[in-house]
């Protein structure tokens, strides 16, 4: 008893050790993930073991998304390494260009991750799946190699920090604003090594897309994982989608937390993270009038269908400012198709935006929208470190899709209500 959500899930996957904060334990892993940057390193390490099979070909997920469609010959070689491995070892869940999406949008959408899972990914934003009630955390390539061989991983049992959100958010205030505010409050190492447990009446009204956005950025506070308690929204999201039965866990009422942070969200404005840390957060009012060269809407943080709907609502019948390049990335093929069917893509193109096939692309300064020296971008992504989107002397601000769309129209950072009124969709 007296256990947090994270501790309960770890306990049910325990192979060796004691689920006490600070202890190192060995756990069973339900799903292990790699991408075109991290998997090739893992594959090399795995091959050095000389094994002829992986622990379970249905529990490994490989997604080329960072530098695909292949950016150059080196990127093509990495993607091929992963593809060849997937074929050789019969990996069920390998997603080729044309079916893929950004990994952290794709796995929940395809039902590959479910409530109660332990998921590791050789990508720091693996923490996204905490929105589904899973324990999910980013690891390195060598960890991925070890899991591919054994189905097991070592973890240091984290302490849990509890985040409680009360009140009704104002128009245009979204899950992205809640998590930006939280990171601004506790700092980029405020949750270092710890689990973040998100709860409170505000979150009951939050869509799964917004929860995924919040859990996605737990790593930006240094956390091991971010996790939501399952509720009706979780159950209905997983219904008819998940490929394995979900296991719903709840924290004990007397669970022991490292500390508790409470927020009244009714007073929040849309939030903006200034360069060059995701914790350098200010209300949008303090950012207004900062001129922009580029706006990016997309990524594993905010490239889902509800994000695109908000952007389309603001961009509809309006034009992108002549000084700004607006680039929009639906996060998966299914989201792209849905946006097409709903007429959102037409809205974007008519507004003067460039719309791309799913890829990580500019989010990590990979391709498709790199910044020159001195240029400034506003992005719905999760990181704004120096050089993140291109030249080391370029700048990135972070915001929600609503702020990004409004800012693209005005050519400078702008509160969405200035463009589209007080009524958010």
């Amino acid at each position, binding site marked *: 008893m007296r256990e947090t959500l994270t501790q309960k899930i770890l306990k049910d996957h325990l192979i060796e050790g004691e689920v006490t904060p600070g202890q190192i334990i060995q756990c069973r892993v339900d799903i292990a993930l790699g991408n075109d940057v991290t998997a090739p390193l893992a594959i090399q390490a795995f091959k050095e073991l000389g094994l002829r099979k992986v622990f379970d070909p249905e529990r490994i997920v490989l997604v080329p998304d960072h530098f695909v469609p292949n950016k150059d010959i080196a990127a093509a070689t990495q993607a091929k390494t992963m593809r060849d491995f997937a074929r050789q070892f019969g990996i069920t869940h390998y997603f080729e260009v044309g079916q893929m999406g950004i990994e952290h949008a794709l796995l929940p959408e395809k039902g590959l991750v479910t409530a109660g899972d332990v998921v590791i990914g050789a990508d720091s934003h693996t923490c996204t799946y905490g929105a589904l009630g899973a324990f999910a955390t980013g*690891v390195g390539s060598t960890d991925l190699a070890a899991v591919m061989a054994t189905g097991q991983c070592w973890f240091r049992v984290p302490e849990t920090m509890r985040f409680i959100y009360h009140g009704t958010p104002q128009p245009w205030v979204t899950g992205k604003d809640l998590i930006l505010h939280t990171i601004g409050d506790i700092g980029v*190492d405020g949750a*270092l090594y710890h689990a973040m447990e998100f709860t409170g009446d505000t979150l009951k009204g939050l869509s799964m897309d917004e929860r995924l956005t919040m859990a996605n950025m737990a790593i930006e506070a240094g956390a091991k994982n971010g996790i939501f308690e399952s509720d009706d929204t979780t159950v209905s999201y997983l219904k008819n989608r998940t490929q394995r039965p979900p296991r719903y866990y709840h924290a004990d009422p007397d669970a022991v937390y490292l500390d508790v942070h409470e927020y009244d969200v009714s007073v929040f404005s849309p939030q903006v993270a200034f360069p060059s840390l995701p914790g350098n957060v200010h209300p949008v009012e303090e950012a207004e009038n900062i001129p922009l060269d580029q706006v990016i809407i997309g990524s594993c943080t905010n490239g889902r269908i509800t994000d695109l709907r908000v952007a389309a609502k603001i961009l509809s019948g309006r034009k992108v400012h002549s000084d700004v390049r607006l680039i929009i990335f639906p996060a998966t093929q299914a989201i792209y198709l849905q946006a097409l069917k709903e007429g959102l893509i037409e809205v974007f193109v008519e507004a003067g935006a460039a719309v791309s096939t799913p890829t990580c692309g500019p989010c990590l300064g990979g391709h498709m929208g790199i910044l020159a020296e001195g240029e400034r971008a506003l992005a719905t992504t999760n990181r704004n*470190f120096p050089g993140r989107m291109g030249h080391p002397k370029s700048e990135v601000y972070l915001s929600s899709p609503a702020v990004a769309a409004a800012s693209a129209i005005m050519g400078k950072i702008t509160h969405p209500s200035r463009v589209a009124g007080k009524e958010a969709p």
Partner: protein
Amino acid sequence: MKLTGRVWIFGDDVDTDQIIPARYLTTFDAASLARHCMEDADPTFPQKVKPGDIIVAGKNFGSGSSREHAPIAIKAAGVACVIARSFARIFFRNAFNMGLPIFICESLKDAVREGDIIHVDGDRGEIILERTSERFETAPIPPFMQTLIDAGGLMSHVKKTTSLQA
């Protein structure tokens, strides 16, 4: 483990994009990564770093992405160890999994100057600053991490301890 080296100083929150920018991630060849090590934090670092040098940094070193390319680049650049006030968790994991020694030390950063020589004794958990003969303590390495180091990294540990089906 005993190391002696010349110090390079970095600040707080040095993230993996500064350690090895994503634009170089189309390879995992260690020597190519080393040529861009710490480039976005200090563009001249790859030229001036010498084998055996030591990086001393502030809090949250290695934050950001899970890329193992970061400890690989640092190790391949010849850096003997990294000493910081704290490390981001995935970087911490990766460093042990790959065999790059790292030490947590709160007080060294404020005492040390760039170019200073320091002596690190990993077993005793102490660092000596040659210029002033001052002594600093480092946090002890957790026993499991020590097992990983002794085994020569995670993969060798897996090989030794797990019965794998060929």
